[in-house]
């Protein structure tokens, strides 16, 4: 069984996993980082989105062995010293969730989105969210939360 060396949320991790182990299973079952969810398991829903070397990827659609040496950030890694990330704050303030199942993926996608496109309008946010499915909210408050977060971060509130 190969050993995969990763940095996960800033900490060095060495995990012995089968080659066929998907990143999401390494996170959830080997590292007990269960904030990353498995929704559809077919790359549609985005509940499993994490950042690999700074880019949003679907952790159900990449084998852990492919990422040897990479840096992975999950929803658990966003808050710093107990202080929520501005995107997390904005989701809370805008009621950007109901059941919360899709929320980790939504937030990881939103952080990546704001990094790539600091100037976001609502139409762009909706377009950028096409790989993330929410079955509760109708997206309205999620879009508001991301719009709010992008303004806060542009304003240096981050």
């Amino acid at each position, binding site marked *: 069984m190969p050993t995969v060396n990763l940095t996960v949320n800033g900490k060095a991790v060495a995990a012995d996993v089968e080659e*066929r182990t998907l990143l999401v299973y390494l996170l959830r079952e080997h590292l007990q980082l269960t904030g990353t969810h498995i929704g559809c398991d077919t*790359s549609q829903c*985005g509940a499993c989105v994490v950042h690999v070397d700074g*880019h949003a*990827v679907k952790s159900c659609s990449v084998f852990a062995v492919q990422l040897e040496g990479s840096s992975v950030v999950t929803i658990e890694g966003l808050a710093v010293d107990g202080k929520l990330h501005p995107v997390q704050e904005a989701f809370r303030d805008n009621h950007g969730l109901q059941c919360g199942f899709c929320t980790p993926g939504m937030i990881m996608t939103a952080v990546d989105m704001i990094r*790539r496109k600091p100037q976001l309008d609502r139409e762009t946010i909706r377009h*950028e969210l096409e790989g*993330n499915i929410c079955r509760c909210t109708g997206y309205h408050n999620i879009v508001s939360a991301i719009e709010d977060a992008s303004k806060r971060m542009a304003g240096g509130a981050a």
Partner: protein
Amino acid sequence: MITYPFTYRRPASLAEAEAALKASPDAKLIAGGQTLIATMKQRLASPSILIDIARLGELRFIRREGDALIIGAGARHSDVATSQDVMKAVPALAELAETIGDPAVRHMGTLGGSLANNDPAADYPAAVLGLAATVTTTKRAIAADDFFQGMFQTALEEDEIVKEVAFPVPEKAAYAKFKNPASRYALAGVFVAKTGSGVRVAVTGAGPGVFRIPEMEAALAKSFSPDAVANIAVDADSLNSDIHASAEYRAHLVTVMAGRAVKAALERA
């Protein structure tokens, strides 16, 4: 979902990858894995060895060379969508890349992977065929007209690896895609390009594989305007019919998308 077990290799160079592929007839290349992994999870594919070429720097580049834009097979869709060189030389190609999958998929999926897979609803084949691009492999250069050979079929041999694609820089080009509202795959996508050597029209999503429409190309060569293609219909008999759209509907979409692509190409400064 769990795939069948496999052995994983990550060669340090393209030459090593080629040797590994030659040595193992049951091996498959993996780059972005955004199609292959899903297929393996459904257990529709079960390669015994995966040869990972995603990190080969020699395959991940974009550069302008005279009248051509050269893109490495390992370029991610997000690389192409955001490249200044692509936006300047062939903006239609950057726009096309931005419509593939979703942002997370675009961070992983590659040009070479899309072409080698040749999904009948993939976007890149329309650009490669529409621009008369040349696909260079570890063995040879293949013209777009020879590369695509129908549903999931290409001219690639078992131990041949796509290295790069040379896209001629067109005078005008655009891609119009009618997306399935759920999957965002093309129900019909039409790439129209006007170059020094004429006009080409390539269609994806509608048929069993990407194809050209010579009648539209001839009409557009005479008059490059949406009206020129408005009354040219493709034969529905050769198109796909499924729960998402009938062949007749797809045939209608092809004409509409062709007109929109011409309009978009003309509106580009």
